[in-house]
């Protein structure tokens, strides 16, 4: 066994890979060889740390030094200074957005301090391509425990007692789902993992698969034992190449060690897992559409009941759980249902992973106990709003979710509070918006997405979303009619109650929640033909304020359509007829003399 005095962990999740962490690894290895350190310092490729906007991220153990935005050019210095002389390279350290003090160790960083990592506990700690590292952190011991010490009914009871609810959106109690499938008659049953993460801006499942694939495999085997299935499928989108690659490797390694396959642990239990790659249709995240797609047919939903627990894959009893749900299972078995239930709120136990995006300082992936307030997430973990602007709302739950306004910043986040606020947990995408965001435009953006992704099987969704999108587009173009708000509400209600699947039923949520909290913005667009946030181009006009204009002519020189004219040292004027509202003049003006309304 080689003994390395230092481990250098470099993130090879999707975020850091796209900021070129692969090249970093190659160069670092070369530098280490040049300095004769390759036998002392080990370079480890790991999963996502969550702090994606600071990538590529590099953590040096045993000190736990956290380097961010490391480039290839920095590596020579890191090797010479840190690895040879033991001097931490200060300029690559992290500092909090609101301070200049550098933080060396990564457990001291505010972003990590408020988090509680359960589903992500191995991400950024182990090498996901080595099953041994997963095992060293108690991996597969939960599977061993259920096979040796527990009956299937006890496993289900334990999951029920933990209070775990589905992390993919609906929040259905996982233990109950398992119980239904266990009780359903049938000799052949299936376990399916829903890894078809499709919300814009969401990458929770992706990071779990990339950073800790074995947790999902182990959980699926446990589920198989609990319900009496010996075959599992993971339905993952082909757009997640790193996740697919790591899952493929993980399955191979588990089979090689006999942790998947026949007679696991010699206890007479067989279980194997196959991968199915999805082509990326949003509707395939819906469970019945997903199962249809696994069967090799066009991914379209079907009415429920019968629920998959009774008639799922090939009409056989099937449980289908989301990646994050599965990632919690081995930990529940290992540490007990009571440990899990000690986190969270009364009806929502455990933790939840959120993808933080939008106008926020710390973009990335976080995991917090259920019941954490939005304020903690946005201000303590997220570091506040970009450019210290005013917080307006968050969009939670993606295209199926809704917005939560500033007034509800102190609401503890759990399944039921979110539903009460008109949003939903969804898979956990959190898009933060500041005062420059137009809520009508946001609703239009999400509707455009659901409309595009509607599979077209049922008319309420196919036609309804189209009509809603038309109305919203009309409003943002300044052609809104007084009756539009009523029409939107009526359409929304009809679609909610009549669409076939969750995609359609939840598609009006972005409209309903923005109408609930920001009705005045809709009214301003329709009646005053104004966009209060200054986003909707058709409703904007640029004017030069005479008193402020010094007549320098910079705006006129930068106008691409020559819409600005005037004499030097006298106030200039914009010709509204010619103006294409590009905003170039406003950007260039040094005196703040151009106004957008």
């Amino acid at each position: 066994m080689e003994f390395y005095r230092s481990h250098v962990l470099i993130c090879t999740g999707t975020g850091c890979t796209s900021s070129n962490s692969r090249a970093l690894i190659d160069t670092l290895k070369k530098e280490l060889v040049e300095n004769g350190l390759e036998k002392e310092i080990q370079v480890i490729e790991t999963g996502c740390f969550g702090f994606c906007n600071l990538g590529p991220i590099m953590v040096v153990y045993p000190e736990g030094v956290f380097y961010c935005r490391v480039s290839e050019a920095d590596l020579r210095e890191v090797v010479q200074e840190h690895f040879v002389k033991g001097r931490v390279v200060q300029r690559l350290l992290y500092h909090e957005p609101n301070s200049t003090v550098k933080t060396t160790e990564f457990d001291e960083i505010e972003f990590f301090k408020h988090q509680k990592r359960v589903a992500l506990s191995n991400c950024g700690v182990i090498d996901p391509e080595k099953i041994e590292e997963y095992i060293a952190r108690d991996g597969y011991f939960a599977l061993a425990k259920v096979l040796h010490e527990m009956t299937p009914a006890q496993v289900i009871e334990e999951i029920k007692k933990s209070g775990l609810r589905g992390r993919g959106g609906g929040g259905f109690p996982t233990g109950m789902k398992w119980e239904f499938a266990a009780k359903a008659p049938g000799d052949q049953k299936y376990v399916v993992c829903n890894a078809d993460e499709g919300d814009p801006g969401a990458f929770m499942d992706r990071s779990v698969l990339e950073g800790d694939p074995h947790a999902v495999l182990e959980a699926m085997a446990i589920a198989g034992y609990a319900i009496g299935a010996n075959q599992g499928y993971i339905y993952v989108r082909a757009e997640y190449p790193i996740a697919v690659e790591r899952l493929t490797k993980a399955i191979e390694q588990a089979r090689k060690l006999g942790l998947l396959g026949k007679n696991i642990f010699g206890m007479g239990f067989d279980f194997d897992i196959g991968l199915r790659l999805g082509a990326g249709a949003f509707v395939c995240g819906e469970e019945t559409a997903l199962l249809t797609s696994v069967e090799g047919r066009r991914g379209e939903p079907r009415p429920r009941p019968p629920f998959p627990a009774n008639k799922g894959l090939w009409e056989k009893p099937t449980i289908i759980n989301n990646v994050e749900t599965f990632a919690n299972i081995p930990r529940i078995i290992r540490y007990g249902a009571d440990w899990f239930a000690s986190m969270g709120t009364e009806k929502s136990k455990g933790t939840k992973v959120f993808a933080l995006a939008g106008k926020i300082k710390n973009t990335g992936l976080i995991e917090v106990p259920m019941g954490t307030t939005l304020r903690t997430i946005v201000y303590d973990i997220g570091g506040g709003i970009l450019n210290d602007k005013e917080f307006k709302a968050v969009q939670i739950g993606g295209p199926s979710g809704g917005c939560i306004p500033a007034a509800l910043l102190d609401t503890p986040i759990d399944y039921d509070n979110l539903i009460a606020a008109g949003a939903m947990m969804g898979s956990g995408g959190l898009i933060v918006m500041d005062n420059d965001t137009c809520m009508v435009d946001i609703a239009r953006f999400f509707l455009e997405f659901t409309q595009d992704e509607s599979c077209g099987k049922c008319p309420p969704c196919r036609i309804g979303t189209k009509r809603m999108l038309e109305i919203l587009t009309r409003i943002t173009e300044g052609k809104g009619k007084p009756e539009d708000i009523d029409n939107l509400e009526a359409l929304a209600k009809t679609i909610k109650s009549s669409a076939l699947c969750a995609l359609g039923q939840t598609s009006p949520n972005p409209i309903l929640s923005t109408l609930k909290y920001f009705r005045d913005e809709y009214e301003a667009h329709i009646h005053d033909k104004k966009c209060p946030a200054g986003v909707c181009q058709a409703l904007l006009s640029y004017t030069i304020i005479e008193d402020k204009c010094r007549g320098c002519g910079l705006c006129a020189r930068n106008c691409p359509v020559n819409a600005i004219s005037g004499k030097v040292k006298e106030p200039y004027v914009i010709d509204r007829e010619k103006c294409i509202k590009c905003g170039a003049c406003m950007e260039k003006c040094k005196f703040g003399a151009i106004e957008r309304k």
Partner: protein
Amino acid sequence: MRSLDELKKLKAKTQKEISTREKTGKPTIIVHMGTCGIANGAREVLNAALAELKERNLTDIHVTQTGCPGLCHLEPLVTISEPGKKPCVYGKVSVENMKRIILQHVVNGQPVTEWLVNLEK
């Protein structure tokens, strides 16, 4: 995998390898590697420490480096830092001394007092 024991063995083996990434509560050997330290052979001392730990299969003992603390005339310096205890600084550490420090101090918990250079011993 045919038994739980096999899994346990595999865990024990890899756990040692990745213990570098965890706080083990064991002593840490800190080699001072400023220019003065390196000129006086800190590199050899560091290598000796690693070789000795490997020999004894003590992979949960962390070895790190740091800069010059100012006692340049006593280089190479090595600090043994234990959680909850005052750090012990050794001066003029040779390859041979390093081995004894590991045996006596790190393994047996008895600082080699005659080599300590902490002002208050």
